[in-house]
């Protein structure tokens, strides 16, 4: 029992500095980061949470780690949901552009792709530079110049390649590039996509709606993860509140007790030879209240201040 008496409340241990606390969080294991997530941001979040909550003990720290990791998870799943919707839109836009893209829009890309292939398969000639010749031939081919078309067909056929397939690939690649440029909000691509959508009487929302039903299960699953993480985070926050309330209430009660006990009414004793009436008169002229002892009063005052300080910190 003696050890219990001398023991201080573990909830009111001395505070350590913020960086030291962040260091102490290493005790709770590595941060739960997925590939591509920033550890510095996570540490920053822990630091900010510590500064806001000011943990009193290990259990407070444990709850802070919980809240931070759950908050991180919530942000991750929200980001994932947004990214998923964006990816669905981008894929559908790519498909749409592949269907609707004008020949002029991907002619340059086709010429480049064809030029690269021709450079590899054209027969070598000492007079000409093959790369130049292939490039020129490819450009003439995409402009549908009969001689160039005939020559390219012969060369490709000899190599077992199909010109239409090469052009299709170039078109698909251009559609993908355009979709990415649209997501990055590049003005030229945005204008082109809007024109194509308007000409077909559709909007981006229409395109998204086509593929969205296939992703609803995944979105619902992510929503469930968000809900679970939010619920758990809120429980952790509530537990921190509860611990603070218990601590705060106990300290408040203690402060009240100490404040009430600081001054005590004590009976004045009659001096020898003094009549009761005289003694009463003297006691009225005095404060009526007398400190039991200055030493006790100082001790109790220091206790009050200590308790008040702890509440303030808490």
């Amino acid at each position, binding site marked *: 029992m003696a050890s219990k008496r001398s*023991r201080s409340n*573990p*909830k009111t241990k001395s505070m350590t500095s913020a960086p030291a606390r962040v260091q102490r969080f290493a005790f709770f294991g590595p941060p739960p980061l997925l590939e591509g997530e920033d550890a510095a941001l996570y540490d920053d979040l822990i630091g900010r949470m510590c500064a806001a909550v000011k943990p009193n003990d290990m259990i407070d720290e444990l709850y802070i780690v919980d809240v931070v990791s759950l908050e991180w998870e919530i942000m991750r799943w929200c980001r994932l949901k947004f990214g998923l919707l964006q990816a669905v839109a981008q894929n559908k836009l790519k498909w749409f552009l592949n269907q609707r893209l004008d020949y002029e829009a991907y002619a340059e890309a086709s010429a480049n792709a064809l030029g690269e292939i021709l450079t590899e398969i054209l027969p070598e000639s000492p007079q000409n530079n093959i790369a130049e010749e292939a490039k020129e031939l490819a450009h003439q081919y995409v402009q549908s110049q009969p001689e160039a078309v005939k020559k390219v067909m012969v060369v490709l056929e000899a190599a077992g390649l199909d010109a239409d397939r090469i052009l299709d690939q170039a078109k698909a690649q251009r559609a993908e590039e355009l979709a990415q440029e649209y997501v990055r909000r590049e003005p030229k691509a945005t204008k082109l996509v809007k024109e194509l959508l308007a000409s077909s009487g559709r909007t981006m929302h229409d395109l998204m709606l086509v593929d969205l039903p296939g*992703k609803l299960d995944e979105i619902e*699953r992510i929503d469930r993860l968000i809900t679970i993480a939010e619920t758990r985070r809120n429980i952790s926050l509530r537990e921190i509140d509860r611990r603070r309330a218990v601590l705060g209430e106990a300290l408040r009660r203690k402060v009240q007790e100490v404040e009430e006990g600081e001054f005590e009414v004590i009976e004045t004793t009659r001096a020898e030879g003094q009549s009761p009436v005289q003694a009463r008169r003297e006691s009225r002229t005095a404060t009526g209240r007398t400190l039991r002892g200055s030493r006790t009063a100082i001790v109790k005052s220091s206790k009050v201040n200590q308790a008040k300080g702890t509440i303030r910190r808490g």
Partner: protein
Amino acid sequence: MASTRKIQANRANARASTGPKTARGRARTARNAFRHGLSVPVFSDPVFSEEVDALARETAGSDADAEILELARRVAEAEIDLRRVRYARHQLVNSALSDPDYESEARVREKDALVLRCMRVGGAFTPMPYDVVEFLDSKPSGPLKLAMILSDKAGQLLAMDRYERRALSRRKFAIRAYDISCMVLWKLSQVD
């Protein structure tokens, strides 16, 4: 009715086929039912036990009495259990995410079906359409990959979630018990 000889032969055969004999074989089959090890108590692992003790000491303080230390140990046990579940869950997702060749079983089946359909329609030596080739070559990345992993591992994640929920509940009540004891102790010390 089987003859005595037949019964004896059956018994001898049965004795001969009652599982692995070698220590290595026995060790391997002992882990047949092992899935994630989350149902195994924390104290059965010496590493986790040490962590529990360290965390309990850190929580209760160096001058804690036996009662408080025991309550802190319960908190620490639940916390380590929780950490173990969370780590397993995290590893499940992260290992799949960091695998560049990760492919879900559903997508593999879809690709197989597509190839078979193409072969049936155009013959074995006919080149497949560009979009089919593109789909066969494609590998999910970014949010699509993570969403796919979550779908594939939904069952396992759900099972782990149950373990996490239990550990959280145990920790909450352990902390409450610890708090009450600390408060009582503190009040006693203040009264005295």
